């Protein structure tokens, strides 16, 4: 259903990819680890590999978490936009099919946060 308006109403999205100078906006969440209380947003070049993203950006944001040292890339279950997904860690975001405003999340069975509380 379209919007009801008093006249022509057509404006470009505020966050269109053209505004990111060749980069993309990406979100990432470590499931059951809510000490950082929201999924984080990143501005990234689309040719960074998923592994580099995790090592250089994601992990340092969570280095205060006691379970970080137990993280094992081989055991992660991934989703892309909340659908099951099997990425290749050493491929770029682009080659993994990650696009502007994509939402990644991963869960490692057995890691359920401090005292199993999802934190």
């Amino acid at each position: 259903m379209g919007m009801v308006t008093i006249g022509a109403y057509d404006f470009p999205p505020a966050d269109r990819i053209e505004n990111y100078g060749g980069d993309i906006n990406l979100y990432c969440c470590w499931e059951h680890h809510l000490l950082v209380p929201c999924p984080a947003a990143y501005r990234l070049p689309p040719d960074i590999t998923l592994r580099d993203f995790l090592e250089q950006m994601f992990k340092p944001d969570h280095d205060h978490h006691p379970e970080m040292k137990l993280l094992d890339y081989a055991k992660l279950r991934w989703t892309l936009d909340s659908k099951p997904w099997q990425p290749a860690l050493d491929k770029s975001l682009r080659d993994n099919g990650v696009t502007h405003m994509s939402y990644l999340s991963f869960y490692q069975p057995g890691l359920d946060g401090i005292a199993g509380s999802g934190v």
Partner: protein
Amino acid sequence: MAVKKASLKEKYRLMTRGLDWETTYQPMDKVFPYDKYEGIKIKDWDKWEDPFRLTMDAYWKYQAEKERKLYAILDSFSQNNGQLNLSDARYLTAIKLWMQGITPLEYAAHRGFSHVGRQFRGAGARVACQMQALDELRHAQTQMHAFSHYNKYFSGFHQANHMRDRAWYLSIPKSFFEDAMTAGPFEFVTSISFAFEYVLTNLLFMPFVSGAAYNGDVATTTFGFSAQSDESRHMTLGLEVVKFVLEQHEDNVPIMQRYIDKWFWRGYRLLALVGTMMDYMLPKKVMSWAEAWGVYWEENGLALFNDLSRYGIRLPKYHEIATKEKLHITHQAWMVFYTACPATAFHAWLPQPYEMDWLSEKYGETFDRFYRPRFEKFGDLEKAGKRFYTNRLPLVCQTCQIPDFFTEVDNPMKQAVRHSEWRGMKFNFCSDGCKDIFVNEPEKFCQAYIPPQQIYQGNAGGARTLAEYAAWLRCGMGTESGDYYSSDDYANWLKWHGERDTTPSSSAAAQP
């Protein structure tokens, strides 16, 4: 001949009806161009009934009396250094949030009602909106006046306009009202007067303002209740608009239901954020958010909707989700404030032990199982000298603009997120409620000015990190921002109280 005195009803009719006319040299549709395009059909504007029969002379009389009372109390509060009698200076975080987030909404409401006060072709509705526009301006002014006293002694009160257009947490209330103000006049009045004021503001203004009294803030108590007495007129305007529109034509029912669904959810999301004021910012507690939700929504709100069911209106969509979330959202929101307070013009802190006990008592297993462990972990980090602050921008909901701290209602360990695609672009949301609103109006919400995205696009003075962004907000750690217990406000508070910490030490001290 003895003249019979007119009854209130007759007097009201004589003084408020027949003041309007059908235009002759311009068509009515050109004079009132905005009150038909929403598809709302009005057959007879004369069926409009004002719930309060308050004529203009009576309105001025009672408003003047309220003002005199209010300013007498504000004067005495400042002359007696009332700020020193607050329970604890932590309390002021709530008042800073009010000044920065709520007072600008009063002004926005003034603008919105001035606009729709011109747009309805029925004179009764126009007059009611114009009176409300005056009330809202009064609220903005009396609040700023009351807070100006605190501005002499505490940080965070001095640059509301600068903050309003820049701060991430203020884009939430700002975008809420801008959504309403850019809608048609019927949607505006349904959103603000009905969904927000009638259904939801009691949740904040009654228990929180009562809590302000309990924590020694006579100034806020007085303007808060003085404003709320105007609100009770506004609420009845909201209910009248809804009933009037529903009685006019059956085609109006689905349109009104869509407005009610949308604005219940938007209002709930906005208010839930300030539910933290009751659970975390009042050092002496009055009522929990969950209890307030039980009284003002589950009792009073459901009674209202039972009454509206005869018009074919059902309960707002996702109301049952809101009720399930009552045990979680204030804790989750406070976690965001606690971790992101380097970029806020208010302070946050870890709840004191007596407050943790109070939260356990009010929220039971929910708090002990899911939220206490977080606070304890943060406490350990504080003890180790590593007070945790987030350094990354969050995912923010495209509709409500709240950082997505929400979890799935049936699994509080699982991050909640929803997705939609429109014209080949991805959008993300905190909930089904917010996603539905976007899907109905993607042309509007695709333009949302979302703070993290704007920062990353270089529109926040070139800032890329939270620290650079805070500098652009003109928020300094220890002055406007950061943890309360390392702030100037706390240091000054100790100095003014002979180095005595006024933080209550037991939950007994915190009970009424």
